Protein backbone atom coordinates (compact mmCIF):
# COMPACT_ATOMS: atom_id res chain seq x y z
CA UNK A 1 0.00 0.00 0.00
CA UNK A 2 2.80 2.38 0.86
CA UNK A 3 4.39 2.41 -2.62
CA UNK A 4 0.95 3.09 -4.06
CA UNK A 5 0.51 6.02 -1.72
CA UNK A 6 3.97 7.38 -2.42
CA UNK A 7 2.64 9.39 -5.32
CA UNK A 8 1.43 12.70 -3.89
CA UNK A 9 -1.63 12.93 -6.10
CA UNK A 10 -2.67 9.42 -5.25
CA UNK A 11 -2.06 10.15 -1.59
CA UNK A 12 -4.25 13.25 -1.76
CA UNK A 13 -6.99 11.27 -3.50
CA UNK A 14 -6.74 8.49 -0.93
CA UNK A 15 -6.64 10.72 2.11
CA UNK A 16 -9.57 12.77 0.86
CA UNK A 17 -11.96 9.99 1.82
CA UNK A 18 -9.78 8.08 4.26
CA UNK A 19 -9.22 10.95 6.68
CA UNK A 20 -12.91 11.79 7.27
CA UNK A 21 -13.73 8.09 7.45
CA UNK A 22 -11.09 7.49 10.11
CA UNK A 23 -12.24 10.62 11.90
CA UNK A 24 -15.84 9.46 11.98
CA UNK A 25 -14.71 6.03 13.14
CA UNK A 26 -12.65 7.63 15.89
CA UNK A 27 -15.60 9.65 17.14
CA UNK A 28 -17.83 6.56 17.20
CA UNK A 29 -15.22 4.47 18.96
CA UNK A 30 -14.59 7.26 21.44
CA UNK A 31 -18.28 7.54 22.22
CA UNK A 32 -18.63 3.79 22.64
CA UNK A 33 -15.46 3.63 24.70
CA UNK A 34 -16.54 6.41 27.01
CA UNK A 35 -19.95 4.82 27.53
CA UNK A 36 -18.36 1.51 28.49
CA UNK A 37 -15.79 3.42 30.54
CA UNK A 38 -18.33 5.15 32.74
CA UNK A 39 -20.63 2.18 33.10
CA UNK A 40 -17.78 0.09 34.42
CA UNK A 41 -17.68 -0.37 38.19
CA UNK A 42 -14.92 1.09 40.38
CA UNK A 43 -11.96 -1.16 40.98
CA UNK A 44 -11.44 -3.00 44.26
CA UNK A 45 -7.98 -1.60 44.85
CA UNK A 46 -7.91 1.76 43.16
CA UNK A 47 -11.57 2.70 43.30
CA UNK A 48 -12.83 5.30 40.87
CA UNK A 49 -9.26 6.14 39.82
CA UNK A 50 -9.37 3.15 37.49
CA UNK A 51 -11.20 5.37 35.02
CA UNK A 52 -7.94 7.22 34.33
CA UNK A 53 -6.58 4.03 32.85
CA UNK A 54 -8.91 4.36 29.86
CA UNK A 55 -7.33 7.60 28.72
CA UNK A 56 -3.82 7.05 30.04
CA UNK A 57 -2.97 3.66 28.57
CA UNK A 58 -4.21 4.44 25.03
CA UNK A 59 -2.18 7.66 25.11
CA UNK A 60 0.90 5.73 26.19
CA UNK A 61 0.38 3.14 23.46
CA UNK A 62 0.03 5.88 20.89
CA UNK A 63 3.15 7.71 22.09
CA UNK A 64 5.18 4.68 21.08
CA UNK A 65 3.22 3.91 17.93
CA UNK A 66 3.50 7.45 16.62
CA UNK A 67 7.26 7.40 17.17
CA UNK A 68 7.47 4.18 15.20
CA UNK A 69 5.58 5.97 12.42
CA UNK A 70 7.92 8.94 12.72
CA UNK A 71 10.90 6.62 12.51
CA UNK A 72 9.53 4.69 9.56
CA UNK A 73 8.68 7.84 7.64
CA UNK A 74 12.11 9.26 8.46
CA UNK A 75 13.76 6.12 7.12
CA UNK A 76 11.97 6.44 3.79
CA UNK A 77 12.64 10.16 3.75
CA UNK A 78 16.36 9.65 4.29
CA UNK A 79 16.99 6.59 2.15
CA UNK A 80 14.70 7.42 -0.77
CA UNK A 81 14.80 11.20 -0.45
CA UNK A 82 11.04 11.08 -0.53
CA UNK A 83 9.30 14.39 0.07
CA UNK A 84 5.99 12.83 1.09
CA UNK A 85 7.76 10.64 3.63
CA UNK A 86 9.39 13.75 5.04
CA UNK A 87 6.00 15.45 5.21
CA UNK A 88 4.64 12.40 7.04
CA UNK A 89 7.47 12.50 9.59
CA UNK A 90 7.07 16.21 10.13
CA UNK A 91 3.32 15.80 10.57
CA UNK A 92 3.66 12.99 13.08
CA UNK A 93 5.98 14.81 15.48
CA UNK A 94 3.57 17.28 17.14
CA UNK A 95 0.89 14.60 17.31
CA UNK A 96 3.33 12.30 19.07
CA UNK A 97 4.49 15.01 21.44
CA UNK A 98 0.90 15.86 22.35
CA UNK A 99 -0.17 12.31 23.03
CA UNK A 100 3.03 11.65 25.00
CA UNK A 101 2.40 14.72 27.14
CA UNK A 102 -1.15 13.46 27.72
CA UNK A 103 0.26 10.09 28.76
CA UNK A 104 2.72 11.68 31.17
CA UNK A 105 0.20 14.04 32.77
CA UNK A 106 -2.63 11.52 33.08
CA UNK A 107 -0.13 8.99 34.37
CA UNK A 108 0.95 11.41 37.04
CA UNK A 109 -2.66 12.11 38.00
CA UNK A 110 -3.25 8.37 38.17
CA UNK A 111 -0.18 7.76 40.23
CA UNK A 112 -0.84 10.28 42.96
CA UNK A 113 -4.03 8.72 44.40
CA UNK A 114 -3.02 5.15 43.69
CA UNK A 115 0.70 4.90 44.50
CA UNK A 116 0.92 8.08 46.52
CA UNK A 117 3.38 9.82 44.24
CA UNK A 118 3.07 12.21 41.30
CA UNK A 119 6.13 10.64 39.77
CA UNK A 120 8.32 7.62 40.43
CA UNK A 121 11.92 8.02 39.39
CA UNK A 122 13.48 4.81 38.24
CA UNK A 123 10.39 3.26 36.74
CA UNK A 124 11.25 1.95 33.27
CA UNK A 125 8.04 2.97 31.62
CA UNK A 126 7.88 6.46 33.11
CA UNK A 127 11.48 7.19 32.25
CA UNK A 128 11.13 5.77 28.75
CA UNK A 129 8.04 7.85 28.05
CA UNK A 130 9.76 10.96 29.40
CA UNK A 131 12.75 10.35 27.15
CA UNK A 132 10.32 9.74 24.28
CA UNK A 133 8.79 13.16 24.93
CA UNK A 134 12.27 14.69 24.88
CA UNK A 135 12.98 12.96 21.56
CA UNK A 136 9.84 14.45 20.03
CA UNK A 137 10.73 17.93 21.26
CA UNK A 138 14.30 17.47 20.04
CA UNK A 139 12.96 16.58 16.59
CA UNK A 140 10.71 19.63 16.51
CA UNK A 141 13.46 21.89 17.83
CA UNK A 142 15.90 20.75 15.16
CA UNK A 143 13.22 21.10 12.50
CA UNK A 144 12.49 24.64 13.61
CA UNK A 145 16.18 25.58 13.78
CA UNK A 146 17.03 24.62 10.21
CA UNK A 147 15.43 27.00 7.78
CA UNK A 148 16.45 25.32 4.55
CA UNK A 149 13.97 22.48 3.99
CA UNK A 150 16.41 20.59 1.78
CA UNK A 151 18.78 20.42 4.75
CA UNK A 152 16.15 19.99 7.43
CA UNK A 153 14.76 16.80 5.91
CA UNK A 154 17.88 14.61 6.19
CA UNK A 155 18.96 16.14 9.50
CA UNK A 156 15.65 15.51 11.26
CA UNK A 157 15.48 12.04 9.71
CA UNK A 158 18.91 11.17 11.13
CA UNK A 159 17.86 12.41 14.54
CA UNK A 160 14.60 10.44 14.44
CA UNK A 161 16.46 7.24 13.55
CA UNK A 162 19.13 7.73 16.21
CA UNK A 163 16.36 8.22 18.73
CA UNK A 164 14.54 5.14 17.49
CA UNK A 165 17.63 2.98 18.03
CA UNK A 166 18.15 4.49 21.46
CA UNK A 167 14.62 3.99 22.75
CA UNK A 168 14.71 0.27 23.57
CA UNK A 169 18.10 0.80 25.19
CA UNK A 170 16.66 3.49 27.42
CA UNK A 171 13.86 1.18 28.44
CA UNK A 172 16.20 -1.68 29.11
CA UNK A 173 18.66 0.44 31.07
CA UNK A 174 15.96 1.58 33.46
CA UNK A 175 14.58 -1.97 33.83
CA UNK A 176 18.07 -3.05 34.79
CA UNK A 177 18.49 -0.05 37.13
CA UNK A 178 15.23 -0.80 38.82
CA UNK A 179 16.23 -4.41 39.37
CA UNK A 180 19.24 -3.00 41.20
CA UNK A 181 16.99 -1.00 43.47
CA UNK A 182 14.06 -3.40 43.72
CA UNK A 183 11.64 -0.55 43.27
CA UNK A 184 7.86 -0.63 43.63
CA UNK A 185 6.52 -3.84 42.21
CA UNK A 186 2.94 -3.08 41.38
CA UNK A 187 3.35 -0.36 38.77
CA UNK A 188 1.25 -2.15 36.28
CA UNK A 189 -1.31 -0.65 33.94
CA UNK A 190 -4.46 -2.06 35.41
CA UNK A 191 -3.37 -4.98 37.44
CA UNK A 192 -2.01 -8.35 36.37
CA UNK A 193 -4.86 -9.29 34.04
CA UNK A 194 -7.80 -7.16 33.12
CA UNK A 195 -11.33 -8.45 33.47
CA UNK A 196 -13.47 -7.93 30.34
CA UNK A 197 -15.47 -5.11 31.96
CA UNK A 198 -12.22 -3.07 31.88
CA UNK A 199 -10.46 -4.70 28.94
CA UNK A 200 -13.22 -4.01 26.43
CA UNK A 201 -13.46 -0.25 26.98
CA UNK A 202 -9.66 -0.07 27.10
CA UNK A 203 -9.31 -1.74 23.72
CA UNK A 204 -12.07 0.37 22.23
CA UNK A 205 -10.44 3.54 23.54
CA UNK A 206 -7.15 2.27 22.15
CA UNK A 207 -8.74 1.89 18.73
CA UNK A 208 -10.36 5.31 19.10
CA UNK A 209 -6.96 6.89 19.73
CA UNK A 210 -5.45 4.92 16.86
CA UNK A 211 -8.07 5.90 14.31
CA UNK A 212 -8.00 9.45 15.64
CA UNK A 213 -4.26 9.59 15.08
CA UNK A 214 -4.72 8.14 11.60
CA UNK A 215 -7.24 10.82 10.70
CA UNK A 216 -5.18 13.67 12.14
CA UNK A 217 -1.98 12.38 10.58
CA UNK A 218 -3.54 12.19 7.12
CA UNK A 219 -4.99 15.68 7.46
CA UNK A 220 -1.65 17.09 8.65
CA UNK A 221 0.17 15.47 5.75
CA UNK A 222 -2.37 16.98 3.38
CA UNK A 223 -1.65 20.31 5.00
CA UNK A 224 2.08 19.78 4.37
CA UNK A 225 1.45 18.92 0.72
CA UNK A 226 -0.57 22.11 0.26
CA UNK A 227 2.06 24.12 2.08
CA UNK A 228 4.69 22.83 -0.30
CA UNK A 229 2.54 23.60 -3.30
CA UNK A 230 1.88 27.10 -1.98
CA UNK A 231 5.61 27.62 -1.51
CA UNK A 232 6.34 26.46 -5.05
CA UNK A 233 3.64 28.76 -6.38
CA UNK A 234 5.07 31.68 -4.44
CA UNK A 235 8.52 30.97 -5.88
CA UNK A 236 7.14 30.86 -9.40
CA UNK A 237 5.16 34.05 -8.89
CA UNK A 238 8.25 35.83 -7.63
CA UNK A 239 10.39 34.59 -10.49
Amino acid at each position, binding site marked *: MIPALANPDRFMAFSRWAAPLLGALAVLLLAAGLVLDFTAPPDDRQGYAVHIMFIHVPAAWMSLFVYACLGGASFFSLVFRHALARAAARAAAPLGAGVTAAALITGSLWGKPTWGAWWVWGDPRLTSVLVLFLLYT*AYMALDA*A*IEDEARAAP*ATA*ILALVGLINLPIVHYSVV*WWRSLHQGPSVLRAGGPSLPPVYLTPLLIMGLAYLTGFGALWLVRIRGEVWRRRAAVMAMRAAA
Partner: protein
Amino acid sequence: MSGFSLILRREFALAFAGGGGPLVAIGFFLAMTSLLPLALGGSPERLAGVAPGFAWLVLALAALISLERMFERDYEDGSLDLIALGPAPLEMAAFAKALAQWATTTAPLALVAPFVVAALGGKTALWPIITAAGLTGGLAFAFLGGIGAALSLGSRRGGILIAVIVLPLFTPPVIFGAGAIEAFGAGLDWKTPLLFLAAYALAAAALSPFAMAAAARNALS
Protein backbone atom coordinates in the same frame (compact mmCIF):
# COMPACT_ATOMS: atom_id res chain seq x y z
CA MET B 1 46.21 4.60 8.69
CA SER B 2 48.52 7.59 8.42
CA GLY B 3 45.59 9.65 7.19
CA PHE B 4 43.76 8.90 10.37
CA SER B 5 46.64 9.82 12.65
CA LEU B 6 47.09 13.04 10.71
CA ILE B 7 43.47 14.01 11.26
CA LEU B 8 43.69 12.96 14.89
CA ARG B 9 46.79 15.05 15.50
CA ARG B 10 45.10 18.01 13.85
CA GLU B 11 42.04 17.67 16.07
CA PHE B 12 44.19 17.54 19.18
CA ALA B 13 46.06 20.63 18.10
CA LEU B 14 42.80 22.45 17.40
CA ALA B 15 41.29 21.46 20.70
CA PHE B 16 44.16 22.89 22.66
CA ALA B 17 44.74 25.88 20.43
CA GLY B 18 41.25 27.35 20.66
CA GLY B 19 41.18 28.30 24.32
CA GLY B 20 42.89 25.95 26.71
CA GLY B 21 41.36 22.64 25.67
CA PRO B 22 39.85 20.96 28.71
CA LEU B 23 40.12 23.99 30.96
CA VAL B 24 36.73 25.44 30.08
CA ALA B 25 34.93 22.19 30.79
CA ILE B 26 36.88 21.67 34.01
CA GLY B 27 36.12 25.22 35.00
CA PHE B 28 32.42 24.58 34.50
CA PHE B 29 32.70 21.37 36.50
CA LEU B 30 34.34 23.15 39.43
CA ALA B 31 31.92 26.06 39.28
CA MET B 32 28.93 23.71 39.50
CA THR B 33 30.64 21.89 42.36
CA SER B 34 30.96 25.07 44.36
CA LEU B 35 27.31 25.86 43.73
CA LEU B 36 26.00 22.53 44.96
CA PRO B 37 26.49 23.11 48.71
CA LEU B 38 24.85 26.51 48.31
CA ALA B 39 21.91 24.95 46.51
CA LEU B 40 21.56 22.04 48.89
CA GLY B 41 21.94 23.95 52.11
CA GLY B 42 25.29 22.64 53.24
CA SER B 43 24.38 19.67 55.45
CA PRO B 44 27.53 17.55 55.14
CA GLU B 45 25.82 14.17 55.15
CA ARG B 46 23.41 15.15 52.41
CA LEU B 47 26.24 16.61 50.39
CA ALA B 48 28.36 13.51 50.79
CA GLY B 49 25.45 11.26 49.82
CA VAL B 50 24.67 13.24 46.72
CA ALA B 51 28.29 13.84 45.74
CA PRO B 52 28.98 10.84 43.47
CA GLY B 53 25.69 11.16 41.54
CA PHE B 54 26.11 14.89 41.24
CA ALA B 55 29.67 14.61 39.97
CA TRP B 56 28.54 12.06 37.42
CA LEU B 57 25.67 14.24 36.22
CA VAL B 58 27.76 17.37 35.92
CA LEU B 59 30.38 15.38 34.04
CA ALA B 60 27.71 14.51 31.47
CA LEU B 61 26.61 18.14 31.23
CA ALA B 62 30.15 19.50 31.03
CA ALA B 63 30.72 17.15 28.11
CA LEU B 64 28.21 19.27 26.21
CA ILE B 65 30.28 22.42 26.63
CA SER B 66 32.89 22.18 23.98
CA LEU B 67 30.68 20.30 21.53
CA GLU B 68 29.68 23.30 19.48
CA ARG B 69 33.22 23.83 18.30
CA MET B 70 33.65 20.26 17.20
CA PHE B 71 32.49 20.83 13.65
CA GLU B 72 31.68 24.51 13.68
CA ARG B 73 35.15 25.88 13.09
CA ASP B 74 35.92 23.60 10.18
CA TYR B 75 32.47 24.21 8.77
CA GLU B 76 32.88 27.97 8.85
CA ASP B 77 36.34 28.23 7.39
CA GLY B 78 35.76 25.67 4.67
CA SER B 79 38.00 22.97 6.07
CA LEU B 80 35.05 20.62 6.44
CA ASP B 81 34.40 20.90 2.71
CA LEU B 82 38.00 19.94 2.04
CA ILE B 83 37.87 17.04 4.44
CA ALA B 84 34.63 15.81 2.89
CA LEU B 85 36.11 15.96 -0.58
CA GLY B 86 39.44 14.55 0.47
CA PRO B 87 40.74 10.98 0.20
CA ALA B 88 39.87 9.98 3.74
CA PRO B 89 36.22 9.10 4.39
CA LEU B 90 34.30 11.72 6.30
CA GLU B 91 33.30 9.03 8.77
CA MET B 92 36.95 8.66 9.72
CA ALA B 93 37.32 12.39 10.26
CA ALA B 94 34.17 12.35 12.37
CA PHE B 95 35.56 9.46 14.41
CA ALA B 96 38.81 11.34 14.92
CA LYS B 97 36.96 14.47 15.97
CA ALA B 98 34.89 12.61 18.53
CA LEU B 99 37.93 10.73 19.81
CA ALA B 100 39.79 14.00 20.22
CA GLN B 101 36.75 15.47 21.97
CA TRP B 102 36.90 12.54 24.39
CA ALA B 103 40.60 12.88 24.98
CA THR B 104 40.60 16.63 25.45
CA THR B 105 37.29 17.24 27.24
CA THR B 106 35.48 14.27 28.75
CA ALA B 107 38.52 12.21 29.78
CA PRO B 108 40.08 15.11 31.73
CA LEU B 109 36.69 15.60 33.39
CA ALA B 110 36.71 11.93 34.39
CA LEU B 111 40.09 12.41 36.04
CA VAL B 112 38.92 15.51 37.90
CA ALA B 113 35.65 13.92 39.07
CA PRO B 114 37.08 11.89 41.99
CA PHE B 115 38.58 15.07 43.42
CA VAL B 116 35.22 16.77 43.11
CA VAL B 117 33.55 13.93 44.99
CA ALA B 118 36.23 14.11 47.68
CA ALA B 119 35.82 17.88 47.91
CA LEU B 120 32.09 17.43 48.50
CA GLY B 121 32.81 14.97 51.27
CA GLY B 122 31.87 11.86 49.33
CA LYS B 123 33.51 8.49 49.82
CA THR B 124 37.04 8.70 48.47
CA ALA B 125 37.08 4.93 48.04
CA LEU B 126 34.79 5.46 45.04
CA TRP B 127 37.51 7.02 42.91
CA PRO B 128 38.33 3.94 40.82
CA ILE B 129 34.73 3.43 39.73
CA ILE B 130 34.14 7.13 39.15
CA THR B 131 37.22 7.34 36.97
CA ALA B 132 36.32 4.15 35.11
CA ALA B 133 32.71 5.23 34.56
CA GLY B 134 33.81 8.72 33.66
CA LEU B 135 36.31 7.56 31.05
CA THR B 136 33.93 5.00 29.55
CA GLY B 137 30.84 7.17 29.74
CA GLY B 138 32.83 10.09 28.48
CA LEU B 139 33.46 8.16 25.30
CA ALA B 140 29.71 7.77 24.82
CA PHE B 141 29.08 11.45 25.62
CA ALA B 142 31.71 12.57 23.14
CA PHE B 143 30.42 10.43 20.27
CA LEU B 144 26.74 11.07 20.92
CA GLY B 145 27.50 14.73 21.38
CA GLY B 146 29.21 14.70 18.03
CA ILE B 147 25.94 13.65 16.42
CA GLY B 148 24.23 16.64 18.00
CA ALA B 149 27.03 18.95 16.94
CA ALA B 150 26.92 17.74 13.35
CA LEU B 151 23.14 17.96 13.14
CA SER B 152 23.12 21.53 14.46
CA LEU B 153 25.65 22.79 11.93
CA GLY B 154 24.60 25.97 10.24
CA SER B 155 21.53 26.55 12.38
CA ARG B 156 21.05 29.26 14.94
CA ARG B 157 20.83 28.55 18.66
CA GLY B 158 23.66 26.05 18.27
CA GLY B 159 24.55 25.35 21.88
CA ILE B 160 21.13 24.87 23.41
CA LEU B 161 19.93 22.98 20.35
CA ILE B 162 22.78 20.50 20.73
CA ALA B 163 21.82 20.00 24.36
CA VAL B 164 18.15 19.41 23.51
CA ILE B 165 19.08 16.88 20.84
CA VAL B 166 21.70 15.06 22.80
CA LEU B 167 20.36 14.82 26.35
CA PRO B 168 17.72 12.18 25.63
CA LEU B 169 20.47 10.15 23.98
CA PHE B 170 22.64 10.50 27.07
CA THR B 171 20.07 8.71 29.22
CA PRO B 172 21.36 5.11 28.98
CA PRO B 173 25.02 5.90 29.70
CA VAL B 174 24.02 8.18 32.57
CA ILE B 175 21.88 5.41 34.04
CA PHE B 176 24.49 2.70 33.62
CA GLY B 177 27.27 4.88 35.00
CA ALA B 178 25.21 5.96 37.99
CA GLY B 179 24.29 2.33 38.61
CA ALA B 180 27.92 1.26 38.48
CA ILE B 181 29.01 3.94 40.92
CA GLU B 182 26.18 3.16 43.31
CA ALA B 183 26.70 -0.60 43.12
CA PHE B 184 30.40 -0.18 43.80
CA GLY B 185 29.65 1.93 46.84
CA ALA B 186 27.10 -0.55 48.14
CA GLY B 187 29.31 -3.56 47.59
CA LEU B 188 27.06 -4.99 44.89
CA ASP B 189 27.83 -6.16 41.37
CA TRP B 190 29.38 -3.13 39.65
CA LYS B 191 30.95 -5.03 36.78
CA THR B 192 27.65 -5.61 34.94
CA PRO B 193 26.63 -1.97 34.70
CA LEU B 194 30.17 -0.97 33.82
CA LEU B 195 30.17 -3.56 31.05
CA PHE B 196 26.84 -2.26 29.76
CA LEU B 197 28.29 1.24 29.83
CA ALA B 198 31.35 0.05 27.93
CA ALA B 199 29.20 -1.79 25.40
CA TYR B 200 27.05 1.28 24.88
CA ALA B 201 30.08 3.53 24.54
CA LEU B 202 31.75 1.23 22.03
CA ALA B 203 28.55 0.92 20.02
CA ALA B 204 28.22 4.70 20.04
CA ALA B 205 31.83 5.06 18.91
CA ALA B 206 31.29 2.54 16.13
CA LEU B 207 27.96 3.83 14.82
CA SER B 208 27.83 7.55 15.43
CA PRO B 209 30.57 8.46 12.90
CA PHE B 210 28.10 7.38 10.21
CA ALA B 211 25.40 9.63 11.61
CA MET B 212 27.90 12.46 12.09
CA ALA B 213 29.22 12.17 8.55
CA ALA B 214 25.70 12.01 7.10
CA ALA B 215 24.73 15.09 9.08
CA ALA B 216 27.91 16.93 8.08
CA ARG B 217 27.43 16.10 4.40
CA ASN B 218 23.88 17.32 4.68
CA ALA B 219 25.03 20.60 6.18
CA LEU B 220 27.60 21.07 3.44
CA SER B 221 25.16 20.41 0.62
